[in-house]
């Protein structure tokens, strides 16, 4: 099915959940309202004409805008979480994008939140752990939200653009 048709299905069913779209991109995407993400995903997976059975990847991208002239700080910007979906049955693909603040309520240290998709696609279980670990997005309802790649006592989320490079770990110098 053409992506424009998939988007039309979604807009008809969820008039308020689809916030934007770009069908000319290399991988056509739609932007989804976080509060309705789960309903949209259930629909995408179960609707016979769509049948997005496979979730390939969850990615969090940090759009931190550095203050002009470099230097520290800069809480401007936002997060975008990408979900790459495909249907083995129909052979079509779609990317969902969700826009988040970098910190919940703009309070530094409070991780932004998203509903979990781990009960819709089991792939999400480990991928959400990885996004939580490296990018610092909290997935509400996840059965086991622990760090997956970093040690469990690791501080901070390394793929955030303002992550300070530590030169030692538990007294062991890094370089």
């Amino acid at each position, binding site marked *: 099915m053409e992506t424009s048709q998939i988007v039309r299905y979604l807009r008809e069913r969820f008039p308020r959940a689809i916030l934007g779209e770009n069908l000319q*991109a*290399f*991988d056509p995407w739609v932007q989804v309202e976080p509060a309705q993400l789960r309903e949209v995903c259930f629909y995408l997976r179960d609707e016979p004409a769509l049948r997005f*059975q*496979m*979730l*390939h*990847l969850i*990615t969090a*991208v*940090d*759009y931190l805008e550095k203050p002009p002239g470099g230097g520290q700080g800069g809480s401007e910007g936002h997060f975008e979480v*990408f979900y*790459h979906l495909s249907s*083995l049955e129909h*052979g079509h693909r779609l*990317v969902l994008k969700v826009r988040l603040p970098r910190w919940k309520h703009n309070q530094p240290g409070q991780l932004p939140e998203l509903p979990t998709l781990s009960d819709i*696609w*089991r*792939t999400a*279980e*480990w991928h959400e752990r990885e996004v939580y670990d*490296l990018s610092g997005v909290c997935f509400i309802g996840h059965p086991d939200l622990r*760090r*997956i*790649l*970093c*040690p469990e006592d690791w501080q901070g989320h*390394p*793929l955030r653009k303002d992550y300070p490079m530590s030169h030692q770990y538990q007294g062991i110098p890094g370089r």
Partner: protein
Amino acid sequence: MVDSVVPEEFDLLTEEIVINMGPQHPSTHGVLRLILRTDGEVVREVQPEIGYLHRCAEKIGENLTVRQFTPYTDRLDYLAAMNMNLGWSLCVEKLLSWQVPEKCRHLRVLMAELNRIASHLVAVGTYGLDLGNFTPYMYCFREREKIVNLFEAVCGARLTYHYIVPGGVMGDLPPGWLRECSRFLDQFQATLNDLHALLTNNYIFIRRTAGVGVLPLGTAISYGCTGPVLRASGLAWDLRRHGEPIYTQMYAPYDFQIVAPQDGQYPDDGLSPPVPDDAVVGDCWHRFYVRMREIVQSVRIVRQAIQWYQEADGSVGEPMKIQQKLPVAEAYLETEAPKGQLGFLIVGQGASIPRRVRIRSSSFCNLSVLPELCRGCLVADVPAIVGSLDLVLGEVDR
């Protein structure tokens, strides 16, 4: 004194014991740690712990230009570095809307399929080793050595090739290389026959693998399993045919089968033995056997690639410049690596250094299904199941 000891009747329901397996365990194929909760011989729960080989590949990608990052992709799945290079190069080319010359495409197919043979040889060889069969391991590594020698003649490296790069390849083939390659292919089928005798038709091997670790198709899809793991569950899905145009056009002129069981049977290729009666679609035996058959298909593709490469005119492409600027756009591309679908996502920000690099690792998703496969199996079956998934921890942890 001795007479007073009366044999006691034990209740066989025992306490559950937590066993740690790895990260330095020979049959976890690298630094994978498994925490098993066992009840006697029966595994109640398996929890994989990963991250021991985490080298921050995605963070490094945010600090280098895409051309500079290419050698780092070698270190993901280091048993199939050509395929990793290929996936990355195609993704960069997708982002930049580049087309490489036809001759380059055939050369890339040639390298990728040779590396697939090498990777599958390690998979089946070490799988035999996991199950206590040492000889096929030596045969597999002997053959892999010949492929590695071929790669060394092409690019100078034996493990991390950095040969396929965005824009083309690092250099054309040395003189006489195609003849050496053909000579390797000609003598190779004999080894496959040996492997079939030692493993595929081996009674002990069949008893250890048939019906063990059965992965239903629905579970496989839900967990994002791809590659031979998905195909062994009965779905003929291969990105070389079902992927995006930039990837499938490379394989369009080639004639090969997608190896997957249909109703428990495979189409006859005249070379491989039949399926034993005990095997169930989706079990360890089928995962092993799909790889064995894919080797045959890859040999076919390599033979065709030699032909196409010789017939094609033109250059083998020009490696991209280090400071090549990327557009403000995202490109995601998956390719069929030996372990499954390998995906790269590049988010460009108008500079030569991307904003974000993301790697979809096939082994990562294939590993995540392990708790599902091991629930209720015997402790001795755990290495059989782990080995059948063909994990490379360099790719899992990135």
